[in-house]
């Protein structure tokens, strides 16, 4: 299945890119599994927030084919 991954703000600079398309073979993949298995060898930076399909979720959320997964630092709008 194909997963779209996005990075914002300091997380984009940390990863060196804004967006990736990832081809994944596993069927019950969590966000945490995605990070460690496909995106980085390092730990997820402290306080990183995760959204799947533009809704906040935690690292144990299971990803489906076509999902958009985003990683970003704490928000500072308003």
């Amino acid at each position, binding site marked *: 299945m194909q997963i779209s991954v*996005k990075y*914002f*703000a*300091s997380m984009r600079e940390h990863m060196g890119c804004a967006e990736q398309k990832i081809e994944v073979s596993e069927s019950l993949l969590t966000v945490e599994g995605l990070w460690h298995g496909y995106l980085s060898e390092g730990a997820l930076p402290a*306080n990183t927030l995760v*959204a799947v399909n*533009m*809704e*906040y979720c935690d690292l144990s959320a299971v990803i489906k084919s076509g999902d958009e997964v*985003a990683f*970003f*630092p*704490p*928000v*500072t*709008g*308003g």
Partner: protein
Amino acid sequence: MRWLFFRRLPGGNMNVVIKSQPFDPYAALGRYQSSLRAGSYGAMVSFVGVMRDFNEDESVSAMTLEHYPGMTEKEIERVCQEALNRYQIDDFLVVHRVGDITPNEPIVLVAVWSAHRRAAFDGCREIINELKQRAPFWKREQCERGLCWVSDNTQDPILKKV
């Protein structure tokens, strides 16, 4: 999108607007209010957040607001829908800037219309508080040390930031 079943957003109007150009919050308020049904609400409370030229005792000359297009609008709509479910709110308007911002430019407008002023105050305050905690915006400031991301505001947003 479970919230759509609870209470419908007031019909027809654009309640959540992301702007990449400077905007006049008072003109926006007047325009939006003229679209509401006359005589139905009795109270309006608005909050306008403006870029200051000082922050944490450092002079700040410019700022860039990055956001997550699509999720920003959805998350602000969720925040407003929660306030609509909790308070007796008739209508609301949220306008938020993104892009390059200079001192004294408005960053955000939150306005709430209600039959009663208590609901208008509570609703407006909750929307801006939740927006600051949840809407995916990130501020990067041009300060004396160079460009720096504004850090986390979850500890005490009211004391640390506007």
